[in-house]
């Protein structure tokens, strides 16, 4: 019973088997990149030590929307209108880009090297229909799924798993930023209050001074006399108000 099952599995792959490589493409993990996902680009790990058996193959990156990834047909080649970047996602359900060979992905990865693939970095060919394999910036936030596909000639020979859905950033409008501050700080309130009280006291003092201009201070026991009238002191016993009369 094993043999008929094997035959059943082999029959649909009329053009040869596409080996499934156990590797899931993922966003770059190290180092921490600020621009890991932006509004129109994202950064993947390079598939190092994955396609070692396929020295003659071209390794392509397939980018599809999450909802069209399941219906992806490996046989449709890169460079065709159905796989052109410029037609994605309207008339092309996926596009293929970042063509490389095993020489671009040497194994093992040298320590300290940053090995990443930036999807969306080519801005010069976004409108150029003569460049259907353009690695252009993506126009929507996704979510997208990617996989690597190895082709020998025009025959697919190996593929990886689809990645987890990749969501890009969406930018908000600056009008959504609220600039109303959360009220006044405690320092400012304390400063205002104390200064107001001090100023009020001083004004009250000034008013009191103006009211008593021309007369001695009320209940003044400490009158300050000018240096010339030294003799007055001797008569300064009880009847302060008799002073002018006494001097005469």
């Amino acid at each position, binding site marked *: 019973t094993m043999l008929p099952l094997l035959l059943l599995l082999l029959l649909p792959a009329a053009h040869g088997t596409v080996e499934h490589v156990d590797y899931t493409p993922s966003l770059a993990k190290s180092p921490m990149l600020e621009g890991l996902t932006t509004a129109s680009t994202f950064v993947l790990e390079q598939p190092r030590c994955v396609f070692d058996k396929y020295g003659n193959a071209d390794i392509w990156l397939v980018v599809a929307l999450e909802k069209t990834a399941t219906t992806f047909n490996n046989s449709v080649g890169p460079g065709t209108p159905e796989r052109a970047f410029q037609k994605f996602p309207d008339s092309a359900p996926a596009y293929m880009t970042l063509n490389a060979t095993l020489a671009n992905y040497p194994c093992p990865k040298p320590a300290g090297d940053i090995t990443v693939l930036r999807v969306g970095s080519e801005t010069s060919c976004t409108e150029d229909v003569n460049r259907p394999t353009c690695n252009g910036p993506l126009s929507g936030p996704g979510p997208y799924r990617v996989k690597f596909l190895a082709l020998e000639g025009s025959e697919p020979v190996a593929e990886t798993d689809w990645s987890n859905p990749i969501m890009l950033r969406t930018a908000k409008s600056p009008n959504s930023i609220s600039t109303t501050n959360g009220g*006044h700080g405690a320092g400012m309130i304390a400063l205002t209050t104390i200064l107001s009280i001090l100023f009020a006291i001083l004004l009250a003092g000034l008013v009191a001074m103006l009211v008593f201009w021309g007369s001695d201070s009320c209940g003044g026991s400490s009158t*300050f006399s000018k240096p010339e009238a030294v003799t007055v002191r001797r008569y300064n016993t009880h009847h302060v108000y008799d002073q002018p009369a006494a001097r005469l």
Partner: protein
Amino acid sequence: MAKSDDCMRILQGLLVFGNVVIGMCGIALTAECIYFVSDPHGVYPLLEATENNDIYAAAWIGIFVGFALFALAILGIIGIIKSDRTLLMVYIILMLITFAFEMASCITAATHRDFLTPNLFLKQMLERYQKTEPINSNDKWMTEGVTKTWDKIMVQNHCCGVLGPSDWQEYTSAFRLTHNDADFPWPRKCCVIDAQGLPINLDGCKLGVPGYYNSDGCYDAISGPVNTYAWGVAWFGFAILCWTFCVLLGTMFYWSGIEY
């Protein structure tokens, strides 16, 4: 009585000392406010673009109040030594006017400081940095001021955006209208720049590799000087006013004790 005479002498001495301190503080206030108005950190265009530069108005008032305090302190010293009631009355009234102005300056500086939040600078940066279509000449002036100031701040302080480079990703901006996201996730000035003024590694900067771009936000670099200006004017002014209050109360008491 000898005792009251001595009391008055002591009060006279204290008031002269108090006025000397006021005079010196007045000069210090003038110097401090001139320093702030000269804006050594270059943040004035950002405040100007918020259309609310009260901190600078407070600093200008501080310059003139400082001079006034110095002049009035001299008048006060003369009035106290001569024990002239009229002179001291003039001194007290003018001092109260100066007190009111300085009070206004302190409160303005403290209130305006609370107004300058990170969100305010963020919104201003997003709306004005590298804006290409100004509405009128005033708008053009403010836009150029904001752009030049931000470029200078980002390069000198090795920072990017208000809270970080993600400011440019989280929000759309005037910059984003003319610079596409794939080539310019953030402005070039956020990249680490070499001696010629070019990024040392443009791809590293675009990817956001640590070491090739400025990952810190610039809010500290802006709010530091602004805080210094605001608190310098507000709290030093407050301290001077508290001392002046005591001296004025003493002068009023002294005035009331002078025999007419």
